[in-house]
C-alpha cells in the first residue's frame, strides 16, 4: 500500500506545517504583542477635541452683551483637489457663490490643508457640500456682540480662535473659555471614528458672567457723551457711572470706540479702555479730596477763612501760583475755595496739611495705585513718594497738578466721599453662573480672590461688615464736603450747568491743562475738561464722571469742565436717576 504511505507522509508533513504556523502565531501574538499593539494604536486611533461654548456676558438685567453661536464652516483641502475647476462648478450652485470665486480661493490658498469657503453655512449647504471630495464641514463657535460698540471697552473682544483679547473677555478668559473635551476614538482607515477608546477630559462649557453694567445706563452715557464728543471735536472722552455705596460700575464709555464684531477694521489705538488706561492731571477735580484730607486731619475748619492773596501767591521754593480766569480772591472760607475753585486757597490748605498727611490721605483715597477693577491693563496713575516731592509739590498737588490719575481712580475717590468716607472698590462682575444656572461665584469670592486693599462686599447686609474695614475720612467730613461744598459748586459755583430740578446734584469741575509734549510747562490750547458729580446729595445713588480730552478750542464754544463736561453729566444723571426710579431702585 504505497499510496497510503505517501498520503500519510504528506499529511503528517502538513500537520507539522500547521504546528509550525501555530508556533508562528504564538510568536506574533504573544511574544511580539506589545510591538504590534503599539503600531496598531498609532494607526487606528484618532483624537478629537470638542470645543467648549464660551460663556455669555450679560448686563445686570440679563441682556446679552456677548455670546457664542455654533456656526458651520465649509472648507476645502486644496492639496487633495486635483481639478479645482470641476469641484468649484459642483460647489457653486450649492453655495450660491460664483464658481470662479471658489476656484480662486482653492488655487490661491497659502495653506495646502485648509481654506475657508464659507463661514456660517446653512445645514442643507453643509450636507450637500460635505459629499464633494476635498470639501469638508467644520463646526465652530463664533463670538458675537449684539450691542456692537455700546460696551465694547468693558466687554472686550476675542480673537478668531475665541481667545479673550480685551476687557472682561481677557480678564476672565479662563472662566469664560471652559475646557475642551478630549476623546480618543478607534478610527477606520479614513480616520472616521468607530467607537470611543478613552475620554481624557470632559467637555465643559465656559461659565457666564453677569456684569454690574446696565445696558440702558450705558446707552444713556454713551449717547450723551458721543454728542458732546462730536460737537467739540475732542480727541477722546470717557464717562463712568458708578454706584457709590458698592462701587458697582453701571456704565463705562470710552470714545473713540470700536465694534467688537469687526475687530479687524478697528483702529488699534481705539481698542484701549481710556477710562482705566489713560492718566492725566486731574486739576480742580482733586480739590475736594485734598480739602477733605485737610479737614479730616484737623488742620483747617470748614468755615475757616483763608486769605487768597488776590490771585497772586508767590514764595520761596514754590514759585508763583495764579487763579484760573485771573480771579483776585481775598478771604475765602474752605467752602468758598471749593465752590469758586481757588488754586491759591488749595495751595495754602496743602501747606497746612503737610506732605506726609497729604500723601497718606491721597494714598488712602486710592491714588497712585490700581483700583483693582476687574479689567486688564489698568494704569497705576502717578503719585510720587514724599521723598521725591519738590518744594512745588505741596502747593501744586492740592489743586491737581504734579499728580496723574485715571478716570476710574477719580470715580472711586468721589464714591468714597459720597459713601460717607467708607472705602469703595470699583468692580464690574456681579456674579458668574454655570451652564446649569447655578451660581459659580459671587462678588464676595471674586473680591477675596483679587485680595488686595480695601476689599468690600456688595449687598445691603454686608455694608455693616464694610464699616469694620474702617473709614478713610470721618463720615461727617465726607458728608460736609458732599452736601455743603460740592452742592455749592453746582448751585452757585462753576458747575451750575449740571444742576437738575428734580434732584440735588453735587459735583466738581475740572479743567486741567495738558503738559506740552515737546517742552516744559503746560499747553495753552490743550485741556482736559472734566466734571464729576453725584445725586441725590443726601443719599447718593450714582456718581458720574465725564472727562473730555482736548475739546477743539478753536470752535469758540469753550473748553472748561463746567461748559463742556457738566451738561453731559447732567443729562446722564437725569436719565439714569429717572430710569433707576422707574426700575424701582
Amino acid at each position: 500500500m504505497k499510496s497510503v504511505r505517501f498520503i500519510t507522509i504528506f499529511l503528517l508533513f502538513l500537520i507539522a506545517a500547521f504546528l509550525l504556523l501555530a508556533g508562528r502565531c504564538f510568536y506574533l501574538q504573544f511574544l511580539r504583542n506589545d510591538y504590534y499593539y503599539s503600531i496598531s494604536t498609532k494607526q487606528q486611533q484618532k483624537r478629537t477635541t470638542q470645543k467648549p461654548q464660551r460663556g455669555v456676558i450679560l448686563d445686570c438685567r440679563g441682556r446679552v452683551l456677548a455670546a457664542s453661536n455654533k456656526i458651520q464652516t465649509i472648507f476645502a483641502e486644496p492639496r487633495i483637489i486635483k481639478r479645482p475647476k470641476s469641484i468649484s462648478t459642483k460647489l457653486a450652485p450649492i453655495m450660491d457663490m460664483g464658481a470662479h470665486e471658489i476656484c480662486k480661493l482653492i488655487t490661491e490658498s497659502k495653506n495646502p490643508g485648509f481654506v475657508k469657503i464659507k463661514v456660517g453655512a446653512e445645514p442643507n449647504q453643509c450636507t450637500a457640500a460635505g459629499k464633494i471630495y476635498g470639501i469638508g464641514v467644520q463646526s465652530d463657535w463664533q463670538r458675537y456682540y449684539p450691542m456692537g460698540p455700546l460696551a465694547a471697552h468693558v466687554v472686550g473682544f476675542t480673537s478668531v480662535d475665541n481667545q479673550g483679547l480685551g476687557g472682561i473677555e481677557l480678564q476672565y478668559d479662563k472662566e469664560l473659555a471652559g475646557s475642551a473635551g478630549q476623546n480618543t476614538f478607534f478610527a477606520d482607515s479614513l480616520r472616521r471614528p468607530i467607537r470611543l477608546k478613552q475620554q481624557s477630559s470632559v467637555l465643559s462649557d465656559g461659565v457666564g458672567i453677569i456684569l454690574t453694567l446696565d445696558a440702558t445706563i450705558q446707552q444713556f452715557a454713551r449717547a450723551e457723551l458721543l454728542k458732546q464728543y462730536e460737537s467739540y471735536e475732542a480727541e477722546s472722552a470717557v464717562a463712568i457711572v458708578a454706584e457709590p455705596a458698592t462701587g458697582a460700575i453701571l456704565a463705562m464709555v470710552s470714545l473713540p470706540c470700536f465694534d467688537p464684531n469687526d475687530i479687524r477694521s478697528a483702529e488699534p489705538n481705539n481698542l484701549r479702555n481710556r477710562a482705566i488706561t489713560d492718566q492725566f492731571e486731574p486739576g480742580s477735580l482733586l480739590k475736594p479730596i485734598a480739602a477733605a484730607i485737610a479737614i479730616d486731619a484737623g488742620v483747617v475748619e470748614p468755615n475757616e477763612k483763608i486769605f487768597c492773596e488776590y490771585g497772586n501767591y508767590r514764595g520761596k521754593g514754590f514759585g508763583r501760583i495764579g487763579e484760573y480766569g485771573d480771579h483776585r480772591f481775598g478771604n475765602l472760607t474752605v467752602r468758598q475755595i471749593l465752590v469758586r475753585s481757588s488754586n491759591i486757597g488749595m495751595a495754602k490748605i496743602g501747606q497746612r496739611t503737610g506732605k506726609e498727611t497729604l500723601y497718606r490721605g491721597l494714598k488712602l483715597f486710592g491714588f497712585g495705585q490700581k483700583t483693582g477693577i476687574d479689567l486688564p491693563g489698568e494704569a497705576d496713575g502717578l503719585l510720587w513718594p514724599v521723598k521725591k516731592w519738590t518744594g512745588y509739590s505741596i502747593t501744586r498737588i492740592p489743586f491737581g497738578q504734579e499728580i496723574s490719575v485715571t478716570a476710574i481712580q477719580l470715580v472711586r475717590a468721589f464714591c468714597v466721599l459720597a459713601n460717607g468716607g467708607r472705602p469703595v472698590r470699583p468692580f464690574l462682575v456681579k456674579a458668574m453662573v454655570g451652564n446649569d444656572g447655578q451660581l459659580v461665584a459671587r462678588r464676595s469670592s471674586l473680591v477675596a480672590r483679587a485680595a488686595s486693599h480695601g476689599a468690600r462686599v456688595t449687598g445691603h447686609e454686608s455694608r455693616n461688615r464694610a464699616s469694620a474695614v474702617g473709614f478713610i475720612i470721618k463720615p461727617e467730613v465726607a458728608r460736609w464736603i458732599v452736601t455743603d461744598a460740592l452742592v455749592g459748586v453746582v448751585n452757585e459755583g462753576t458747575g451750575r450747568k449740571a444742576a437738575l430740578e428734580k434732584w440735588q446734584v453735587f459735583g466738581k469741575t475740572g479743567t486741567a491743562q495738558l503738559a506740552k509734549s515737546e517742552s516744559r510747562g503746560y499747553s495753552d490750547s490743550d485741556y482736559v475738561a472734566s466734571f464729576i458729580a453725584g445725586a441725590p446729595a443726601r443719599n447718593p445713588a450714582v456718581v458720574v464722571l465725564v472727562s473730555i480730552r482736548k475739546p477743539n478750542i478753536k470752535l469758540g464754544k469753550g473748553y472748561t469742565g463746567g461748559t463742556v463736561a457738566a451738561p453731559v453729566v447732567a443729562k446722564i444723571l437725569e436719565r439714569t436717576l429717572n430710569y433707576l426710579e422707574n426700575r424701582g431702585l
Partner: protein
Amino acid sequence: MVTTIKNNPLPDYIAMVVIFLMAVGTVFVFSAGANIGRELDLQRFYDFPGLRQILFFPLAVTVMYAVSCFNYRKFSLADGWLKSPAGFLLVLSLVLLIVVLFPQFGTEINRARRWLRISIGPVTISFQPSELAKWSIVFFLAAVCDKFGNSIRLYWKRFVPAFLVIALVAGLVITEDFGTAVFISLLGFLMLIISGAKLWHILTPLPFAAIAFCAALIRSPSRMQRIAAFLNPQKWADSAAYQANQSLIALGSGGLLGKGLGKGICKYGHLPEDTTDFIFAIIGEELGFVGTATVIGLFIVFVWLGILVVVRCRDRLGQLLAGGIVLTIAIQAALNIGVATVVLPTKGIPLPFVSAGGTSMLLCAAAVGVLLNIAKQTGIKNSAAENAENVQLKIEN
C-alpha cells in the same frame, strides 16, 4: 449493499470539525463585513458578504450531507469513461474556463477575469470556474490512477497524458489566476506521486514548469513587486507589503485572548480582503492566539481524521480520493495561514470553510461530502472493493 456501521464515528467527527469551522467562518465573515459607511439592509442582504455567508452556511451543510449519500465509487472509471462523473466534471470545468475568458461572460474583479456571473432575478451569483477545475483535477486524477493502477509508472502511455491534462487546465487558468494555476499543478503532481508514479517521471516536466513560472513572474511587475515586498516588508509597508503588514498588525495586536469578538479595528478599512484571504488575521485580532490556535487545531484534527480515513479505507479509489480531498483542503489552509502570518508571499487563496465566498465553500462542502461517504464505508469489505483489489493484484502479478 452499502451498510453504515453504527459504531463507526469517523464521518461524524469529520462532519463536526468541518461544520464547526464553517460556523466560525460565518461568524467572522459577519464580523469582518462590518462597515461604518453602510448599514445592514436585509432587503439587499445578498450585497453583504456577512449576510450572504449566513445563507451559504446551511446550504453548504445540506450539500455536504447530500453528497455524502452518494456512493463515491460511482467516480470509478472501471465501468468505462462515460459512466463516471469525474470525466464530465473535468470537461465541464474546461468549458467554463474557456467561457470565462470571453468578456461577454466573464466578469473582471480586481483586474482579473475569474468570475462567471449568472443573474437569477435580483440575485447575481458569481461563480469561479478555477475552483471547480481544481476539484475536477483531483477527482479525475484519482479516478484515472485508480483505473490504471500501477501502470501509471509507464511514462509515455500513462504519465504523459495525465500530465497533459494538468498542463491544459493549468494553462487555461494561468492567464487570469497565476496562483491557482500553480496550486492546480502542485495538486496534480501530488496526486500522481501518491498514486505511484515514478519520481524521475515527475521531475521531467519540472524544467518546463520552472520556465513557465519565471516567465509569468517576469511578465507581471506586480508579482515581482509582491516577491520583493515579501523579502523586504519594511520598505514596502505602504504599497506592496501593505496587506502583509496590516495582517501582522491585526494578528499581533490581538494578543493572547484577543480584543473580543466583533471588537477588532483592522476590519474597518485597515486590512483589505478581511472577509476572504485575510480572515485568519481578523480571527487572530478578535480572539487572539486562542482563536488562531483553535482554527489551526481544527485543521490538524481534520487532517488527522483524513489520515484515519485513508488508512482504514480498503479501496484504492477511496484512498486516492480521500487523500486528494484532505490534501487539497489542508494545503489551501496552510497556504492561507502562511500568507496571513507572512511566512509566504501574499497570494489570494481562501481559507477553506472559513473565508467568504460561495463557490469555494460549496465545492469544499461537496468534496467533504465525498470524504464522508468514503469514511462511512471504511472497514467494510464489499464486492466492489474486492474487485478493485483483485484487479490490482493481477497487475502486480
